């Protein structure tokens, strides 16, 4: 155990990236990601971090520069949010298909419009299918650990894929938390030098990003899919390895007081904290309720999820994004699909809430539980989704 310090999560995230000895940071500032990039820029300017900080003119360029730098074999970091991710979008897909081990922190914020700077998950859901590894973090420590962890997994030769660490804008980025910094020796022990699978180098010519004709494109996609599926075992092994060093073990589906619980909440990101408090309260009142926190989003942890929901009668899925005209929120749609073949699968109740930073308190979670439980609200159970707390 090293010393815990009270620090803003964004600053801690930047420090972690610095500890990972990143070579290139290319980013464009956007709320609420700004402090992460700002701090990295300071670290480079002050000589504390030996890296190139490339201030680009847009997020499209940020990811393009990241692709170029990663392709040469440099350890590369970028960071964005919401509209910035939208501008970056096409290059995110390219980075993944080129199998470049870029690490990106995504400070989750709603996509406009109406214009909003506050937190929800509509930005990350827009790149759900980009083919990168995507995880959600719950608190500051979680963010710090995963900034270093992400490089290790992304750069593993068996993986070689971009790694996106989601952290809730403001709810995480702007809060001060007690965070245990890693010892430098830990980083040295955990994170080896980057040995890229492919590298642009004059000594060995290689083409990246070639045209794929119709008769080879499907094969290219299939290979990419397999890479992401295969990444899962590395994700799990590396969590174990990190846990052996830090004492903190992470799982694809974190379970909180789920034993024998008839109803399970399922949350992503920082909502796990508030939901766990609600579960404490409800259990004290004798309710049979637990909590699942989906940490690994891509590759999707199908087996772990099936195991975690076994025996539950209902899963209350909290979505923080809208799939317009779809069948429920993006997470609920995924969970339903994942549980479809399960014998005696639980009822999925889906609430869309917490959009653009609207507070969802313990009371709200308790109310959602009541609504899902009560016979009078059968309509809730039967509808595909409910916009929780929306004013009529």
């Amino acid at each position, binding site marked *: 155990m090293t010393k815990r310090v009270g620090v803003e999560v964004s600053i801690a995230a930047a420090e972690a990236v610095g500890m990972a000895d990143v070579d290139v940071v290319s980013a464009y500032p956007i709320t609420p990601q700004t402090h992460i990039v700002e701090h990295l820029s300071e670290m480079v300017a002050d000589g504390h971090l030996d890296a190139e900080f490339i201030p680009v003119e847009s997020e499209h360029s940020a990811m393009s520069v990241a692709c170029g730098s990663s392709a040469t074999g440099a350890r590369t970091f970028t960071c964005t949010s919401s509209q910035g991710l939208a501008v970056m979008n096409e290059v995110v897909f390219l980075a993944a298909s080129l199998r*470049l081990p870029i690490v990106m922190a995504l400070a989750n914020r709603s996509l406009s419009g109406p214009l909003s700077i506050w937190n929800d998950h509509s930005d990350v859901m827009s790149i759900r299918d980009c083919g990168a590894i995507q995880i959600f973090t719950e608190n500051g420590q979680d963010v710090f650990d995963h900034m270093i962890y992400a490089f290790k997994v992304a750069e593993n030769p068996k993986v070689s894929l971009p790694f996106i660490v989601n952290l809730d804008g403001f709810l995480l980025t702007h809060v001060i938390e007690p965070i245990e910094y890693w010892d430098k020796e830990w980083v040295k022990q955990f994170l080896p030098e980057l040995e890229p699978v*492919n590298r642009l180098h004059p000594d060995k010519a290689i*083409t990246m990003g*070639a045209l794929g*004709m119709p008769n*080879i494109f*499907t*094969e*290219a996609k299939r290979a990419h899919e397999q890479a992401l599926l295969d990444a899962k075992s590395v994700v799990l092994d590396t969590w174990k390895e990190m846990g052996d060093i830090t004492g903190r073990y992470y799982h694809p589906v974190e379970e909180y007081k789920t034993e024998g619980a008839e109803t399970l909440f399922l949350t992503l990101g920082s909502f796990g904290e508030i939901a766990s408090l609600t579960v404490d309260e409800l259990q004290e009142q004798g309710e049979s309720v637990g909590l699942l926190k989906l940490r690994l989003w891509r590759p999707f942890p199908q087996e772990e999820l099936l195991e975690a929901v076994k025996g539950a009668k209902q899963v209350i899925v909290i979505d923080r994004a809208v799939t317009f005209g779809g069948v429920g929120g993006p997470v609920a749609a995924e969970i339903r699909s994942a549980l479809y073949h399960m014998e005696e699968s639980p009822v999925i109740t889906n609430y869309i809430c917490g959009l653009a930073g609207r507070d969802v308190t313990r009371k709200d979670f308790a109310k959602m539980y009541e609504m899902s439980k009560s016979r009078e609200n059968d309509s809730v159970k039967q509808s595909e989704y409910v916009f929780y707390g929306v004013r009529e």
Partner: protein
Amino acid sequence: MVDDVIFTGNHFWYPILFSNGRLLRRNVVSTVKEPGWRDLEVGFAISQSGSSREYKTGDWRSLRPIVDKSKCIKCGICYIFCPDMAVVKTEEGYFEADLYYCKGCGICAYECFTGCIEMVAEEE
């Protein structure tokens, strides 16, 4: 439907599309088996350098450049302007298009000072 496609090096095949939308059937130039997804390099990279040499763009051609050597002054303007570097210098110092790559765009004929290049229709 395309029954056959041309193997043009590494993992590139190019079905020939006529302007009327019909696909031209061609014999397979190489008998190399089409690669499965496991055969591809990580990230669809191509580590074999110079593979574009095998990319036979000459099949796209509907017009062929014919040089009238009696008018040619060996200036090499066609060589400079060819967008595909398909024009090569012969031993006698004349410039000719390598028909394996020449797409028949006609830029050489357009740029030629003396008008010694004529674009004639491919008959096949």
